Protein backbone atom coordinates (compact mmCIF):
# COMPACT_ATOMS: atom_id res chain seq x y z
CA UNK A 1 0.00 0.00 0.00
CA UNK A 2 1.44 3.30 -1.09
CA UNK A 3 1.26 5.94 1.60
CA UNK A 4 1.83 9.62 1.21
CA UNK A 5 2.18 12.17 3.92
CA UNK A 6 0.07 15.13 3.03
CA UNK A 7 -0.39 18.16 5.15
CA UNK A 8 -3.99 18.33 6.25
CA UNK A 9 -3.58 21.38 8.43
CA UNK A 10 -3.24 24.58 6.50
CA UNK A 11 -1.98 27.13 8.98
CA UNK A 12 0.38 27.12 11.92
CA UNK A 13 -2.34 28.60 14.05
CA UNK A 14 -4.45 25.49 13.38
CA UNK A 15 -1.46 23.26 14.03
CA UNK A 16 -0.96 24.91 17.41
CA UNK A 17 -4.66 24.63 18.15
CA UNK A 18 -4.84 20.91 17.43
CA UNK A 19 -1.61 20.25 19.33
CA UNK A 20 -3.09 21.96 22.37
CA UNK A 21 -6.32 19.98 22.03
CA UNK A 22 -4.35 16.74 21.89
CA UNK A 23 -2.36 17.54 25.01
CA UNK A 24 -5.40 18.82 26.86
CA UNK A 25 -7.67 15.87 26.12
CA UNK A 26 -5.54 12.88 25.13
CA UNK A 27 -6.05 11.15 28.48
CA UNK A 28 -9.75 11.95 28.55
CA UNK A 29 -10.10 10.61 25.00
CA UNK A 30 -8.34 7.42 25.97
CA UNK A 31 -10.49 7.07 29.07
CA UNK A 32 -13.70 7.44 27.03
CA UNK A 33 -12.43 5.02 24.38
CA UNK A 34 -11.41 2.50 27.04
CA UNK A 35 -14.90 2.62 28.53
CA UNK A 36 -16.29 1.58 25.16
CA UNK A 37 -13.58 -0.65 23.75
CA UNK A 38 -12.07 -2.07 26.90
CA UNK A 39 -8.74 -2.74 25.27
CA UNK A 40 -5.67 -0.55 25.46
CA UNK A 41 -4.52 -0.88 21.84
CA UNK A 42 -8.01 -0.35 20.42
CA UNK A 43 -8.51 2.67 22.67
CA UNK A 44 -5.30 4.21 21.31
CA UNK A 45 -6.46 3.54 17.75
CA UNK A 46 -9.68 5.33 18.65
CA UNK A 47 -7.75 8.33 20.01
CA UNK A 48 -5.75 8.48 16.79
CA UNK A 49 -8.89 8.27 14.64
CA UNK A 50 -10.54 10.88 16.82
CA UNK A 51 -7.63 13.21 16.18
CA UNK A 52 -8.09 12.71 12.42
CA UNK A 53 -11.77 13.56 12.84
CA UNK A 54 -10.96 16.62 14.99
CA UNK A 55 -8.43 17.90 12.46
CA UNK A 56 -11.08 17.60 9.77
CA UNK A 57 -13.53 19.51 11.95
CA UNK A 58 -11.23 22.08 13.47
CA UNK A 59 -13.43 24.95 12.35
CA UNK A 60 -16.28 23.57 14.49
CA UNK A 61 -14.19 23.93 17.63
CA UNK A 62 -14.65 27.53 18.63
CA UNK A 63 -13.58 28.50 22.11
CA UNK A 64 -10.28 27.10 23.37
CA UNK A 65 -10.55 25.17 26.64
CA UNK A 66 -14.29 25.76 26.94
CA UNK A 67 -16.96 23.34 28.16
CA UNK A 68 -18.25 23.20 24.61
CA UNK A 69 -14.83 22.18 23.29
CA UNK A 70 -14.63 19.40 25.86
CA UNK A 71 -18.14 18.21 25.00
CA UNK A 72 -17.33 18.22 21.29
CA UNK A 73 -14.16 16.18 21.84
CA UNK A 74 -16.06 13.75 24.08
CA UNK A 75 -18.91 13.26 21.60
CA UNK A 76 -16.53 12.69 18.68
CA UNK A 77 -14.39 10.28 20.73
CA UNK A 78 -17.47 8.31 21.76
CA UNK A 79 -18.69 8.21 18.18
CA UNK A 80 -15.33 7.05 16.82
CA UNK A 81 -14.92 4.45 19.56
CA UNK A 82 -18.39 3.04 18.92
CA UNK A 83 -17.69 2.84 15.16
CA UNK A 84 -14.44 1.05 15.92
CA UNK A 85 -16.19 -1.27 18.34
CA UNK A 86 -18.76 -2.20 15.68
CA UNK A 87 -16.04 -2.84 13.08
CA UNK A 88 -13.99 -4.86 15.51
CA UNK A 89 -16.97 -6.93 16.52
CA UNK A 90 -17.68 -7.90 12.90
CA UNK A 91 -14.01 -8.42 12.10
CA UNK A 92 -13.43 -10.78 14.98
CA UNK A 93 -16.87 -12.42 14.70
CA UNK A 94 -16.93 -12.71 18.43
CA UNK A 95 -19.97 -13.08 20.52
CA UNK A 96 -21.32 -9.66 21.39
CA UNK A 97 -21.72 -10.74 25.00
CA UNK A 98 -17.92 -10.77 25.32
CA UNK A 99 -18.00 -7.03 25.05
CA UNK A 100 -21.19 -6.11 26.78
CA UNK A 101 -19.53 -5.55 30.12
CA UNK A 102 -17.37 -2.76 28.73
CA UNK A 103 -20.00 -0.85 26.79
CA UNK A 104 -21.34 1.86 29.04
CA UNK A 105 -25.05 1.61 29.30
CA UNK A 106 -26.71 4.69 27.95
CA UNK A 107 -28.20 5.11 31.35
CA UNK A 108 -24.87 5.36 33.19
CA UNK A 109 -25.35 9.07 33.68
CA UNK A 110 -29.00 8.40 34.36
CA UNK A 111 -28.04 6.60 37.54
CA UNK A 112 -27.45 9.98 39.11
CA UNK A 113 -30.17 11.87 40.80
CA UNK A 114 -32.16 13.54 38.07
CA UNK A 115 -32.60 17.22 38.22
CA UNK A 116 -35.60 17.20 35.96
CA UNK A 117 -37.65 15.11 33.65
CA UNK A 118 -36.00 16.29 30.47
CA UNK A 119 -32.58 15.28 31.66
CA UNK A 120 -33.94 11.83 32.36
CA UNK A 121 -35.22 11.63 28.81
CA UNK A 122 -31.90 12.80 27.42
CA UNK A 123 -30.13 10.07 29.37
CA UNK A 124 -32.53 7.53 27.91
CA UNK A 125 -31.95 8.74 24.35
CA UNK A 126 -30.14 6.26 22.13
CA UNK A 127 -26.58 7.42 21.43
CA UNK A 128 -27.28 7.75 17.70
CA UNK A 129 -29.96 10.35 18.43
CA UNK A 130 -28.38 12.05 21.43
CA UNK A 131 -25.08 13.02 19.78
CA UNK A 132 -26.58 14.92 16.79
CA UNK A 133 -29.19 16.58 18.99
CA UNK A 134 -26.61 17.67 21.56
CA UNK A 135 -24.31 18.99 18.86
CA UNK A 136 -27.17 20.91 17.31
CA UNK A 137 -28.88 22.34 20.37
CA UNK A 138 -26.11 22.50 22.97
CA UNK A 139 -23.08 23.17 20.78
CA UNK A 140 -24.97 25.14 18.13
CA UNK A 141 -23.38 23.35 15.18
CA UNK A 142 -24.94 23.23 11.73
CA UNK A 143 -26.16 19.99 10.13
CA UNK A 144 -23.17 20.11 7.81
CA UNK A 145 -20.71 20.39 10.71
CA UNK A 146 -22.43 17.60 12.64
CA UNK A 147 -22.45 15.36 9.56
CA UNK A 148 -18.71 15.86 9.12
CA UNK A 149 -17.95 15.30 12.80
CA UNK A 150 -20.05 12.13 13.07
CA UNK A 151 -19.21 10.84 9.61
CA UNK A 152 -22.84 10.55 8.51
CA UNK A 153 -24.87 12.35 5.85
CA UNK A 154 -26.57 15.67 6.43
CA UNK A 155 -29.89 14.02 5.71
CA UNK A 156 -29.24 11.47 8.46
CA UNK A 157 -28.33 14.29 10.84
CA UNK A 158 -31.57 16.11 10.19
CA UNK A 159 -33.60 12.93 10.60
CA UNK A 160 -31.88 11.97 13.82
CA UNK A 161 -32.32 15.44 15.29
CA UNK A 162 -35.98 15.31 14.43
CA UNK A 163 -36.38 11.83 15.91
CA UNK A 164 -34.45 12.93 18.98
CA UNK A 165 -36.83 15.84 19.52
CA UNK A 166 -39.81 13.54 19.06
CA UNK A 167 -38.29 11.09 21.54
CA UNK A 168 -37.87 13.85 24.12
CA UNK A 169 -41.48 14.92 23.68
CA UNK A 170 -42.90 11.43 24.14
CA UNK A 171 -44.34 10.61 27.49
CA UNK A 172 -43.53 6.93 27.03
CA UNK A 173 -39.84 7.70 26.72
CA UNK A 174 -39.79 7.92 30.48
CA UNK A 175 -41.23 4.52 31.07
Amino acid at each position, binding site marked *: *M*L*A*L*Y*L*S*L*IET*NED*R*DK*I*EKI*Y*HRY*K*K*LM*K*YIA*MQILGREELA*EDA*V*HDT*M*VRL*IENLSSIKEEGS*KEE*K*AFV*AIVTENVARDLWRKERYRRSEDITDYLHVIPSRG*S*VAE*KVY*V*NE*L*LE*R*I*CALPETLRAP*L*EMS*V*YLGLSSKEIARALNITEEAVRKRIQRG*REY*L*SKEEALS
Partner: protein
Amino acid sequence: MNDKKIKEAFALYRKNWEEDLPDDRQLEEIKISHELDRKVRKLIRGKERKIGGNWRIMLQTAACIAGVIILSAAAFIVLEKNGGDPTNIYDNPINSHGEIPERPKQDSENPLEEGKDPDSNAFEGEVLLPEAVPVGFVMTGVDGDKAYIRHEYQTASGGFYLHISQIFKDVARPLDLQEDYCRKVSIKEGVEGVYYNDGENAKLIFEYKKYRIHLEGDLFLEDFIEIAQSMIK
Protein backbone atom coordinates in the same frame (compact mmCIF):
# COMPACT_ATOMS: atom_id res chain seq x y z
CA MET B 1 -40.57 21.55 23.61
CA ASN B 2 -38.33 24.58 23.06
CA ASP B 3 -34.62 24.57 22.36
CA LYS B 4 -33.79 26.68 25.40
CA LYS B 5 -35.13 23.98 27.72
CA ILE B 6 -33.35 21.22 25.81
CA LYS B 7 -30.12 23.21 25.90
CA GLU B 8 -30.39 23.64 29.66
CA ALA B 9 -31.03 19.94 30.05
CA PHE B 10 -27.99 19.11 27.93
CA ALA B 11 -25.89 21.48 30.04
CA LEU B 12 -26.99 19.50 33.11
CA TYR B 13 -26.35 16.25 31.30
CA ARG B 14 -22.75 17.34 30.58
CA LYS B 15 -22.33 18.56 34.15
CA ASN B 16 -23.35 15.15 35.47
CA TRP B 17 -21.13 13.48 32.89
CA GLU B 18 -18.16 15.55 34.11
CA GLU B 19 -18.87 14.54 37.68
CA ASP B 20 -18.77 10.90 36.61
CA LEU B 21 -15.32 11.33 35.10
CA PRO B 22 -12.27 10.34 37.09
CA ASP B 23 -10.58 13.28 38.80
CA ASP B 24 -7.45 14.96 37.40
CA ARG B 25 -5.11 12.79 39.44
CA GLN B 26 -6.75 9.60 38.18
CA LEU B 27 -6.74 10.88 34.59
CA GLU B 28 -3.06 11.72 34.97
CA GLU B 29 -2.38 8.06 35.68
CA ILE B 30 -3.71 7.01 32.27
CA LYS B 31 -0.72 6.12 30.13
CA ILE B 32 -0.40 7.27 26.55
CA SER B 33 2.09 5.26 24.53
CA HIS B 34 4.93 6.96 22.71
CA GLU B 35 3.70 5.23 19.58
CA LEU B 36 0.40 7.11 19.80
CA ASP B 37 2.22 10.39 20.47
CA ARG B 38 4.42 9.73 17.44
CA LYS B 39 1.47 8.89 15.20
CA VAL B 40 -0.45 11.98 16.25
CA ARG B 41 2.62 14.16 15.76
CA LYS B 42 2.92 12.81 12.24
CA LEU B 43 -0.75 13.48 11.73
CA ILE B 44 -0.42 17.08 12.86
CA ARG B 45 2.70 17.86 10.88
CA GLY B 46 1.86 15.82 7.79
CA LYS B 47 -1.03 13.48 7.59
CA GLU B 48 -0.59 9.91 6.42
CA ARG B 49 -3.09 9.28 3.70
CA LYS B 50 -3.37 5.86 2.14
CA ILE B 51 -3.97 5.97 -1.57
CA GLY B 52 -3.69 2.27 -2.31
CA GLY B 53 -7.08 2.15 -3.97
CA ASN B 54 -6.43 5.07 -6.26
CA TRP B 55 -4.84 3.47 -9.30
CA ARG B 56 -4.64 6.66 -11.32
CA ILE B 57 -2.44 8.38 -8.74
CA MET B 58 -0.36 5.21 -8.31
CA LEU B 59 0.21 4.94 -12.07
CA GLN B 60 1.13 8.63 -12.30
CA THR B 61 3.64 8.21 -9.48
CA ALA B 62 5.11 5.10 -11.11
CA ALA B 63 5.36 6.92 -14.46
CA CYS B 64 7.21 9.83 -12.79
CA ILE B 65 9.68 7.45 -11.10
CA ALA B 66 10.25 5.57 -14.39
CA GLY B 67 10.84 8.90 -16.18
CA VAL B 68 13.48 9.95 -13.64
CA ILE B 69 15.25 6.56 -13.95
CA ILE B 70 15.30 6.75 -17.77
CA LEU B 71 16.65 10.33 -17.74
CA SER B 72 19.34 9.42 -15.19
CA ALA B 73 20.40 6.40 -17.26
CA ALA B 74 20.59 8.54 -20.41
CA ALA B 75 22.72 11.15 -18.64
CA PHE B 76 25.03 8.40 -17.30
CA ILE B 77 25.54 6.92 -20.81
CA VAL B 78 26.30 10.34 -22.32
CA LEU B 79 28.87 11.11 -19.60
CA GLU B 80 30.53 7.71 -20.00
CA LYS B 81 30.89 8.22 -23.76
CA ASN B 82 32.67 11.53 -23.09
CA GLY B 83 35.31 9.65 -21.11
CA GLY B 84 36.06 9.29 -17.41
CA ASP B 85 34.13 8.01 -14.50
CA PRO B 86 30.69 9.59 -14.67
CA THR B 87 30.26 9.28 -10.93
CA ASN B 88 33.33 11.42 -10.27
CA ILE B 89 33.00 15.00 -11.40
CA TYR B 90 36.78 15.54 -11.15
CA ASP B 91 37.43 12.85 -13.77
CA ASN B 92 35.09 14.50 -16.19
CA PRO B 93 37.03 16.69 -18.56
CA ILE B 94 34.33 19.30 -18.83
CA ASN B 95 31.75 20.39 -16.32
CA SER B 96 28.43 22.06 -17.03
CA HIS B 97 30.17 25.45 -17.27
CA GLY B 98 32.57 24.17 -19.92
CA GLU B 99 35.53 24.22 -17.46
CA ILE B 100 37.76 21.55 -15.96
CA PRO B 101 37.01 21.57 -12.25
CA GLU B 102 39.89 21.74 -9.81
CA ARG B 103 40.32 18.98 -7.26
CA PRO B 104 39.96 20.16 -3.71
CA LYS B 105 43.18 20.20 -1.72
CA GLN B 106 43.51 16.98 0.24
CA ASP B 107 45.36 18.62 3.07
CA SER B 108 42.90 21.48 3.60
CA GLU B 109 42.47 22.35 7.25
CA ASN B 110 39.33 21.09 8.86
CA PRO B 111 38.46 23.14 11.90
CA LEU B 112 36.20 20.44 13.30
CA GLU B 113 37.32 17.84 15.72
CA GLU B 114 35.00 14.98 15.07
CA GLY B 115 34.27 12.40 17.70
CA LYS B 116 35.26 14.54 20.62
CA ASP B 117 33.65 13.60 23.89
CA PRO B 118 30.57 15.81 24.29
CA ASP B 119 30.92 15.66 28.03
CA SER B 120 34.19 17.53 27.84
CA ASN B 121 34.32 20.82 29.61
CA ALA B 122 33.25 22.71 26.50
CA PHE B 123 30.53 24.63 28.28
CA GLU B 124 32.18 25.08 31.62
CA GLY B 125 29.33 23.24 33.28
CA GLU B 126 26.96 26.16 32.72
CA VAL B 127 24.71 24.21 30.39
CA LEU B 128 23.89 20.59 31.15
CA LEU B 129 23.60 18.11 28.33
CA PRO B 130 20.25 16.32 28.06
CA GLU B 131 19.85 12.96 29.68
CA ALA B 132 18.48 11.46 26.46
CA VAL B 133 20.44 8.78 24.62
CA PRO B 134 23.03 10.31 22.29
CA VAL B 135 23.07 8.73 18.82
CA GLY B 136 24.61 9.73 15.52
CA PHE B 137 27.47 12.11 15.25
CA VAL B 138 29.18 14.48 17.60
CA MET B 139 31.06 17.54 16.52
CA THR B 140 32.66 20.03 18.76
CA GLY B 141 34.92 22.75 17.63
CA VAL B 142 35.09 26.23 16.31
CA ASP B 143 33.24 27.52 13.29
CA GLY B 144 34.48 30.97 12.41
CA ASP B 145 34.00 32.90 15.61
CA LYS B 146 31.70 30.49 17.38
CA ALA B 147 32.47 27.52 19.58
CA TYR B 148 29.83 24.90 19.18
CA ILE B 149 28.67 21.39 19.85
CA ARG B 150 26.21 19.46 17.71
CA HIS B 151 24.73 16.17 18.70
CA GLU B 152 21.86 13.90 17.77
CA TYR B 153 19.75 12.43 20.56
CA GLN B 154 16.98 9.92 20.82
CA THR B 155 14.24 9.97 23.43
CA ALA B 156 11.28 7.68 23.74
CA SER B 157 9.16 10.47 22.25
CA GLY B 158 11.36 10.99 19.20
CA GLY B 159 14.70 12.19 17.94
CA PHE B 160 16.18 15.65 18.08
CA TYR B 161 19.33 17.58 17.30
CA LEU B 162 21.04 19.72 19.84
CA HIS B 163 23.25 22.54 18.74
CA ILE B 164 24.90 24.78 21.30
CA SER B 165 26.96 27.71 20.26
CA GLN B 166 28.80 30.17 22.37
CA ILE B 167 27.68 33.73 21.89
CA PHE B 168 30.55 36.13 21.59
CA LYS B 169 29.61 39.67 22.42
CA ASP B 170 30.52 41.04 19.01
CA VAL B 171 28.44 38.53 17.06
CA ALA B 172 25.40 38.25 19.32
CA ARG B 173 22.18 38.43 17.31
CA PRO B 174 18.66 38.77 18.62
CA LEU B 175 16.50 35.66 18.25
CA ASP B 176 14.40 35.88 15.10
CA LEU B 177 10.71 36.17 15.66
CA GLN B 178 8.89 35.82 12.40
CA GLU B 179 5.19 36.03 13.09
CA ASP B 180 4.09 33.42 10.61
CA TYR B 181 5.44 30.32 12.17
CA CYS B 182 7.07 31.11 15.44
CA ARG B 183 6.24 32.39 18.84
CA LYS B 184 7.88 33.18 22.13
CA VAL B 185 7.68 30.58 24.85
CA SER B 186 8.73 30.62 28.46
CA ILE B 187 11.20 27.95 29.50
CA LYS B 188 11.85 29.01 33.04
CA GLU B 189 11.50 32.25 34.91
CA GLY B 190 13.70 34.74 33.11
CA VAL B 191 14.53 32.39 30.24
CA GLU B 192 12.52 32.80 27.08
CA GLY B 193 12.89 31.00 23.82
CA VAL B 194 11.49 31.06 20.34
CA TYR B 195 9.51 28.06 19.14
CA TYR B 196 9.43 27.54 15.40
CA ASN B 197 7.05 25.14 13.73
CA ASP B 198 6.82 25.45 9.99
CA GLY B 199 4.92 22.22 9.60
CA GLU B 200 7.96 20.17 8.63
CA ASN B 201 10.35 20.77 11.47
CA ALA B 202 9.92 22.04 14.95
CA LYS B 203 12.67 23.93 16.75
CA LEU B 204 13.17 25.62 20.04
CA ILE B 205 15.92 28.19 20.27
CA PHE B 206 16.85 29.91 23.49
CA GLU B 207 19.77 31.64 25.10
CA TYR B 208 21.18 30.85 28.47
CA LYS B 209 24.20 32.54 30.03
CA LYS B 210 26.61 32.92 27.14
CA TYR B 211 25.19 30.14 25.00
CA ARG B 212 22.59 29.87 22.31
CA ILE B 213 20.91 26.48 22.43
CA HIS B 214 19.10 25.14 19.44
CA LEU B 215 16.89 22.06 19.67
CA GLU B 216 15.38 20.69 16.49
CA GLY B 217 13.45 17.54 15.86
CA ASP B 218 10.34 15.48 15.78
CA LEU B 219 8.95 16.47 19.18
CA PHE B 220 6.07 18.37 20.64
CA LEU B 221 6.63 21.78 22.20
CA GLU B 222 6.17 20.40 25.72
CA ASP B 223 8.91 17.78 25.03
CA PHE B 224 11.26 20.54 23.86
CA ILE B 225 10.54 22.64 26.92
CA GLU B 226 11.15 19.67 29.20
CA ILE B 227 14.54 19.04 27.56
CA ALA B 228 15.41 22.74 27.67
CA GLN B 229 14.52 22.93 31.37
CA SER B 230 16.73 19.93 32.09
CA MET B 231 19.67 21.77 30.54
CA ILE B 232 19.35 24.83 32.73
CA LYS B 233 20.64 24.75 36.26
